[in-house]
């Protein structure tokens, strides 16, 4: 490991042409015994090799561009009191550290690693355990949070923080992180042009991923499992949600994906399995929802009357208790070419599409949306009868909520 560190240090030395950089070793027997002291002694663009051991330090201020590399997982412990690393300089890189035990505060958002008004930050390959907030970037740009492992200790929403919180930032890459047991897994507020890729967010109290007022962001190939609710996208435009999986967000107030006041997004190729409500939409407009699979959910889609101009095409709806429910007598969205496991029509001309249009909304879903208590009649024989009657002659469910070319076989 030391050879590697020296090697990396040499590389850094060769790379930084303008300013020659030194390697400062930090360990129990070195000249620099604490990280704080090492930073104070360092010149900008120096390289700090922190060797394994336990460093009981908090409020470490990194105010010059430095590279911190942990060798054999040195532990930086905040003693449950303070914030641990605070970055106020551009081009800081932190990796290989195990950062743990940040103090819980009700007045300050203390974090394992926080950065303010800087760019080109790289936080890579760290472990953050029991940090109140894990990584907190404020007013940052062009930075990376990659390959980190976050395990929180959240018990109540009020006394817990988010694993990765981005605020007023742009062009941030959040990739390959494991995020567990926080309030929100990943939280973005006023964040633009950022990418959330291939993260696993599970067991968080509130949301696995949470967008507020953030436009033009993508999140691809993430897994959201067992959270209070999977993902909440609110007050945001142009969000691309592709190839994610939303699983086991199960409970009386849980959903896979919550859409509120969002416009012009794309939801494609996602898997929604075993959620109480897979997608809950409120004032969600102009979304393209394609090629997703909704399986074994309580409600696949709960689309309120305030949602308009959304296109649901080529999705699979398999084994959900209710496929669609809405609270409005009208429908302003289009459903076309989806596969519905509850479809009972036939395909005489063998073109793969059913000859009889499918009405995915049952009368009972409508009744439940009108009077919530009527859910007590779920699975009653009477409900089956009225659902059948409504299917034959629709009177209450929106007449245009119809898939006129339902697929006969599920899409793969």
């Amino acid at each position, binding site marked *: 490991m030391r050879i590697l560190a020296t090697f990396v240090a040499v590389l850094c030395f060769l790379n930084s042409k303008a300013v020659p950089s030194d390697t400062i070793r930090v360990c129990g027997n070195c000249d620099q015994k604490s990280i704080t002291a090492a930073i104070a002694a360092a010149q900008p663009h120096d390289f700090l090799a922190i060797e394994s051991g336990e460093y009981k330090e908090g409020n470490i201020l990194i105010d010059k561009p430095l590279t911190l590399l942990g060798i054999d997982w040195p532990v930086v412990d905040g003693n449950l009191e303070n914030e641990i690393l605070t970055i106020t300089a551009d081009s800081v890189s932190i990796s290989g550290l195990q950062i743990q035990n940040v103090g819980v505060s009700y007045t300050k958002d203390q974090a394992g690693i926080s950065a303010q008004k800087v760019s080109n930050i790289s936080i890579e390959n760290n472990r953050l355990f029991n940090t109140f907030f894990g990584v907190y970037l404020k007013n940052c740009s062009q930075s990376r949070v990659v390959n980190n492992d976050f395990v929180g200790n959240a018990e109540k929403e009020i006394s817990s923080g988010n694993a990765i919180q981005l605020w007023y930032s742009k062009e941030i890459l959040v990739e390959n992180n494991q995020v567990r047991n926080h309030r929100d897994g990943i939280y973005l507020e006023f964040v633009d042009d950022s990418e959330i890729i291939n993260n696993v967010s599970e067991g968080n109290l509130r949301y696995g991923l949470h967008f507020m007022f953030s436009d033009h962001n993508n999140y691809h190939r993430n897994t959201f499992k067992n959270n209070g609710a999977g993902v909440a996208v609110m007050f945001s435009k142009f969000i691309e949600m592709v190839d994610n999986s939303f699983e086991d967000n*199960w409970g009386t107030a849980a959903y896979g994906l919550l859409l509120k006041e969002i416009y012009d997004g794309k939801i494609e190729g996602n898997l929604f399995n075993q959620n109480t409500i897979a997608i809950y939409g409120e004032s969600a407009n102009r979304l393209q929802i394609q090629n997703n699979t909704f399986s074994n959910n309580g409600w696949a889609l709960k689309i309120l009357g305030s949602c308009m101009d959304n296109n649901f095409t080529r999705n699979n709806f398999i084994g959900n208790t209710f496929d669609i429910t809405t609270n409005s007598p009208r429908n302003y969205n289009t459903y076309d070419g989806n596969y519905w496991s509850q479809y009972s029509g036939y395909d005489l001309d063998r073109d793969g599409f059913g000859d009889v249009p499918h009405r995915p909304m049952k009368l009972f879903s409508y*009744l439940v949306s009108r009077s919530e208590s009527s859910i007590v009649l779920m*699975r009653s024989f009477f409900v089956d009868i009225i659902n059948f009657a409504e299917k034959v002659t629709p009177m209450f469910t929106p007449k245009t909520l119809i898939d006129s070319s339902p697929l006969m076989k599920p899409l793969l």
Partner: protein
Amino acid sequence: MNRTLKYTFYDLIRSWWCYAYFGFYFLTAGAILYLSGDANRAVASLMNIIIILSPLVGTLFATMYYYNSREFMELLLAQPVRRRSIFLGQYLGLAGSLSLSFLLGLIIPFIVLGFFGSEFGNFLMLSITGVLLTFIFSAIAYWIAIRHENRIVGFGIAIFTWLFLAVIYDGIFLLILILFEDYPLDKLTLGLTMLNPIDLSRILLMLKLDISALMGYTGAVFQKFFGTNAGITIAFGASALWILIPVMSFLRKAARKDF
């Protein structure tokens, strides 16, 4: 009473009806458990079958048995035996043999397919519900049969009672919920559920299953109520009343009836 109970029980347990009933549950439970890999879903499907079918079979079978065994009953009445023990014995023998067929039909697939250990709670709930419904509906049917000499009328009323409790009641229930949607309806829903043994069984079973999460706020109210000892006591008290009232009524009717 013991002797009439024993005769009725042995008579029925050897009858074609009981074998058919056992066979039906055996095959259905077996097929559902075997075909759906998910035990939770299988239990939900079984629940749907049990809460409709146990009452129906209880109703039909009790009415039929009463009318068919009339001559035997008249013979017994000529003997120095108390009326109470004849009728109670016959009712218990009847409901007991039906319950036994049902229980055997349910338990064998559970054991054979290896769900008995893992799904024991659900199995227990299913069997308690099925047995209670059998006892309740055969008591009601017996009461109706004893009140009506004309067997067509008796059958008609018994089947209508089943239809009312299994289907029509829920329609009225739903209508009330929609009409009074502006009012808080928690207590009313709880009360209306208690008043119908089929609804009560359905809700108790659903609260045990995963799908209870779909019931949201209302589900939480029910869960809270039935989670307490008082709630469970009231639920079983209501079921017990549904057995006791018809049984007392038919015993009273039988004691005074001129055969």
